[in-house]
């Protein structure tokens, strides 16, 4: 029973919340609202999938939001002149570069992840403002908006991207040697290195992958606004971290799963959706979200102690 709750606890909470809202709020069960819910949380789900990998190594990525903005701006700048395909490539390359920088600062220079990614976050923001004079980039091809707002049948494209990313990342984590190294180095870096594994390269890869996923998040966001904004995605890294911890992945590293993170992202999304529908002032939303994080992690921590 306890084991069941440890494994499926958050899923149960998600299901209960869903059932309660579904049966009590007519506006909630409106299909359009449900599709909106999925679409609005796609960006966070994608960024949080990468954040999960980082947190499993025992690290943190405070630059995820700024990397998303960087990818969006790079894509927008290239897209207006050279078309959508090159724009997307430019966005992802810029994101990967930021991630590589994180990875090298952490594994080669040895700066702790919190500080390294904080530094990269601030630098990235600065560069974005300098290079654009803080002005948005308009005039993107209209077709690009399908990425953010379009759908295949009733199913939003943004959500499809998130599902594909989550499935791939889940497979990478559970079914590849790389995933084993990520889990092992998060549990004990020294022992992993002494088992003949290139810990530095693994860490660099993790931060690069996380940044590419943040970049994908930024590209979806760009498709939703169709304007390249240097201050876009500000604070998104914190939403992603929240999804990871609400999902039950411990910050101590060595454990965790992508599925849990997706559940965490949905729980947070469901709450903000419900508050919206119940006409609660948006000012209340951060307070409620903060409370949910503390309650979820609190329950998890207490149940771990009692084992």
């Amino acid at each position, binding site marked *: 029973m306890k084991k069941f709750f440890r494994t499926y606890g958050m899923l149960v909470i998600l299901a209960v919340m869903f059932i309660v809202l579904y049966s009590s709020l007519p506006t909630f069960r409106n299909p359009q609202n449900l599709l909106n819910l999925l679409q609005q949380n796609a960006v966070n789900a994608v960024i949080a999938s990468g954040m999960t990998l980082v947190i499993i190594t025992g690290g943190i990525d405070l630059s995820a939001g700024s990397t998303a903005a960087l990818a969006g701006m790079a894509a927008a700048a290239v897209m207006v002149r050279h078309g959508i395909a090159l724009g997307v490539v430019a966005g992802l390359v810029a994101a990967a570069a930021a991630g590589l920088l994180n990875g090298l600062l952490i594994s080669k220079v040895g700066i702790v992840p919190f500080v390294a990614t904080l530094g990269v976050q601030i630098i990235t923001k600065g560069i974005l403002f300098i290079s654009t004079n803080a002005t948005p980039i308009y005039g993107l091809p209209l077709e690009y908006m399908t990425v953010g707002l379009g759908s295949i049948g009733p199913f939003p494209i943004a959500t499809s991207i998130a599902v594909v990313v989550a499935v791939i990342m889940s497979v990478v984590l559970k079914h590849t040697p790389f995933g084993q190294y990520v889990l092992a180095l998060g549990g004990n870096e020294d022992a992993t290195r002494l088992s*003949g594994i290139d810990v530095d390269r693994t860490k660099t890869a993790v931060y690069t992958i996380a940044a590419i996923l943040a970049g994908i998040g930024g590209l979806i966001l760009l498709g939703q606004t169709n304007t390249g904004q240097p201050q876009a995605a500000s604070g998104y890294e914190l939403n992603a971290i929240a999804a990871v911890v609400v999902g039950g992945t411990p910050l101590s590293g060595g454990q965790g799963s992508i599925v849990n993170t997706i559940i965490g992202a949905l729980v947070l999304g469901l709450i903000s959706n419900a508050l919206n529908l119940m006409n609660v002032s948006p000012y209340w939303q951060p307070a409620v979200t903060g409370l949910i994080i503390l309650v979820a992690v609190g329950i998890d921590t207490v149940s771990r102690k009692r084992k």
Partner: protein
Amino acid sequence: MSTNRDVSNQPVLEMRSIVKRFPGVLALDNVDFTLMPGEVHGLVGANGAGKSTLMKVLGGVYGDYRGEILIGQNACEMRSPREAQEHGVSVIHQEFSLVSTLTVAENIVLGMEPRRGTGMLGKAFLDWPRLRQQAASLLEELGFDKVDPDSRVADLSVAEQQLVQIAKAIAADARILVMDEPTARLSKAERDELFRIIDRLKHAGTSIVYISHFLEEVFQVADRVTVMRDGKVVAVHQVEDLDRRELVRLMLGRDIQSGDKVRVPSAADKAGMGEAVLSVDGLSRNGKFEGISFKLHRGEVLGIAGLVGSGRTDLARAIFGADGAVDSGNIVLKGKTYHPKTPRKAVRSGIALLPEDRKQQGLVLVRPVSDNTMLAVAHKLVRGLFLDHRARHREVDSMIKRLSIKCASQDVSVGTLSGGNQQKVVLAKWLAASPDILILDQPTAGVDVGTKEEIYVFLRRLAAAGSALIMISDDPEELSRVCDRILIMRRGRIVQELCGDAASGDVLTAVTGDY
């Protein structure tokens, strides 16, 4: 030691019918344990016998035990470490509970700092001079004068940290001191110093529970011995009524041929000496070791003996590339020049290292037995890009059987296993990689007697099958029993080579010889 002292007949501690259950395991089955004032009481048993669990109950770590605990005739509840402390019980674990960033003095008075202040701020401020002075006078009283109260704990040696831990317990008015494997990381000189301190403490009336795998030590320091097996107490004896053989028999429930050579005939025995797989020539690292030269042959177990700080661990790590490139010297591995730079390169060249500290360096404790066993070969057991889970499962199962690792399933985290079984998992990890050369740094540290014998036999079998082994150990007896040749290291140099027929006494003499 001395037994003719006048001690009161009332026990300071009585534990009655203690029961502690873990999911699926009865860890303590109606255990009785008594401790007399001023007594050193040895607590021995194989790994998993329940001695650590019993001491954790006493220390208040497992609040949900059943049974009675009496301290000086009064029934007590030991539901938390705090309660245990209030009743004068102090447990010194193998991993010290000191704050390494604070000074010795700060650690000793932690939680009981002297305060000062005036008026409204009556006790708001630390009384630094008094704090320092209290700690210093306590250290002096205990005769630990070589420990500077102002040095940071992180800068102390293991032995000094242990003294601080003891001082801290005494400062907290501990009347019952539990020492769990206190000598595991000490050199011989430090060990003798500890025994003198134990003797002094007991004459001052402190009762000590002494847990150790080194039976010689138990005979040396203990007045009485309680033997545990499978969660039960199987015997309580005055130490002079026992001999080593009898004690081992009680612990294992069977006889063991101790002191005999563990001689599965190896390839080296059969065909003279096999070819040299590893030739080390003039290997040096500044401040660690110098001019190290030796040859290691196929089918051979080569021992390295030396005190802590003799450079033996640094040498092992250097060959494995754990600390980067060396300063000078050459290594020829299987006929080719080999420059150890990273563990990854070493592993790919067929060298494995079982490190001295299995928890910090050998295992990922939060991960399951399966992942740990397969860690070094994760990239090999794959189908295309993906892990071959079926093959992995089979391989882990066969390793568990081959080494008789005791675990509920291969999916339980390694952290839940006993020390001996954890060490077997590290061994399993390297066996899976089938290295040509296996370096073992203290493979039996913190491992029970029965498992030690299993490991010895296993190492000999590996050698017989053609592997080359280097075994570093603190225990002269095990070196002389298992190894074909023994190199003696002192102050970073190889000073002597003994052949495998050397008695343990010869090894000990060589290791501790004059400089």
